[in-house]
């Protein structure tokens, strides 16, 4: 039955933060980037409703790659930056105007592969930014090449006989470098991603959220999970939420376990406060108030 309904608005919950004229987006059917982006936008809306953050403060910086396309769909100030350099760009944003909150949203190939050095040193400096990394195990936009996060033994376009390398556990690496907030979730836990963003976004220091995603079209084709539902269930088998007692207990193993959870949650002075202890700039008095609470 088709009826005429001219007055009612049928929109998605986060449509006011999306450039709806550009939807449907380019991501493949079943890609987890959309789930992560939706969780992030829901968290922004919730924080805005509480009055914690203003969407005009946010700068949405993305790199190159599948995930990098997100800045074209989000109705926030943002930048689509060169490959691997979204963190370098976010440095500039924060240092030029300390009132802004840079959010880096990018993929594993962009942040851990090409821009790995920027990630290490941003975490080491505890630089005030939120980094959301969508981990889809390969360089998907360019055709499925080997990435630093590709599991050992997995097939990809450039490793047709299996990956001989060990993968990089990015969440554990960033936790070891002393970031203020480190969490890893998979796309099976969209509410947890949202809660993590809610907790990390108003914080100072370096905050890192890794989202283990599925890539049925490119990576799934190589490893035999071509259907989004098959890949989703295969990832659910290994993705386990656990509270590790030490960083060494965090696992990133495609055959055994990918540990999920909040690994680091602390409040240490970020880079902007450290720089104010040394240099007395004018903007040091205007640094945003600390909005930390033991929830």
């Amino acid at each position: 039955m088709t009826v005429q309904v001219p007055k009612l608005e049928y929109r998605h919950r986060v449509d006011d933060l999306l450039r709806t004229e550009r939807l449907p987006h380019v991501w493949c059917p079943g890609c987890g980037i959309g789930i992560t982006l939706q969780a992030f936008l829901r968290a922004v809306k919730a924080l805005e409703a509480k009055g914690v953050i203003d969407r005009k403060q946010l700068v949405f910086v993305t790199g190159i790659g599948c995930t990098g396309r997100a800045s074209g769909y989000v109705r926030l100030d943002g930048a689509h930056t060169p490959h691997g350099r979204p963190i370098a760009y976010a440095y500039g944003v924060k240092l030029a105007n300390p009132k802004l909150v840079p959010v880096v949203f990018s993929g594993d190939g962009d942040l851990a592969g090409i821009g790995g050095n920027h990630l290490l040193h941003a975490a080491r400096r505890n630089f005030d930014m939120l980094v959301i990394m969508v981990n889809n195990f390969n360089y998907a936009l360019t055709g499925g090449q080997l990435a630093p996060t590709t599991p050992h033994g997995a097939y990809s376009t450039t490793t047709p006989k299996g990956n001989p390398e060990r993968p990089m556990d990015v969440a554990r690496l960033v936790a070891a470098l002393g970031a203020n907030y480190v969490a890893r979730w998979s796309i099976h836990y969209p509410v947890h991603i949202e809660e993590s963003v809610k907790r990390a976004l108003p914080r100072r220091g370096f905050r890192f959220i890794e989202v283990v995603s599925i890539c049925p079209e490119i990576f799934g084709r190589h490893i035999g999970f071509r259907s989004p539902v098959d890949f989703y269930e295969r990832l659910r088998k290994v993705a386990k939420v656990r509270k590790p007692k030490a960083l060494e207990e965090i696992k990133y193993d495609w055959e055994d376990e990918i540990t999920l959870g909040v690994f680091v949650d602390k409040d240490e002075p970020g880079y902007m406060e450290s720089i104010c202890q040394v240099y007395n700039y004018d903007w040091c008095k205007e640094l945003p108030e600390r909005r930390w609470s033991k929830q």
Partner: protein
Amino acid sequence: MAPRRAYDIIILANRCKECGLCIHVCPKKILVTGNKQNQKGYRVTTVTKPSDCIGCRLCEFSCPDFVIRIEPSSDGVPKGLIVWGENEVEVIKD
């Protein structure tokens, strides 16, 4: 026993890409792949029994394409609303 609350399942048809995640995660299994195609040629998810919806919003959260939205029903009647265009809304009731 209190009566079950009624929910509207709003599906923005032209964004759907037929990945099947919403159908897979629905605990009540009330979503199915439909027969009608959207502008891009994907068969849009449709609703079989809206009164069974418990409003967990898992399908909304797990949809990568910003298609589904679950709202408490405005008129108290559970229904599926498939939005095909500006003024073209298909209403599915039990």
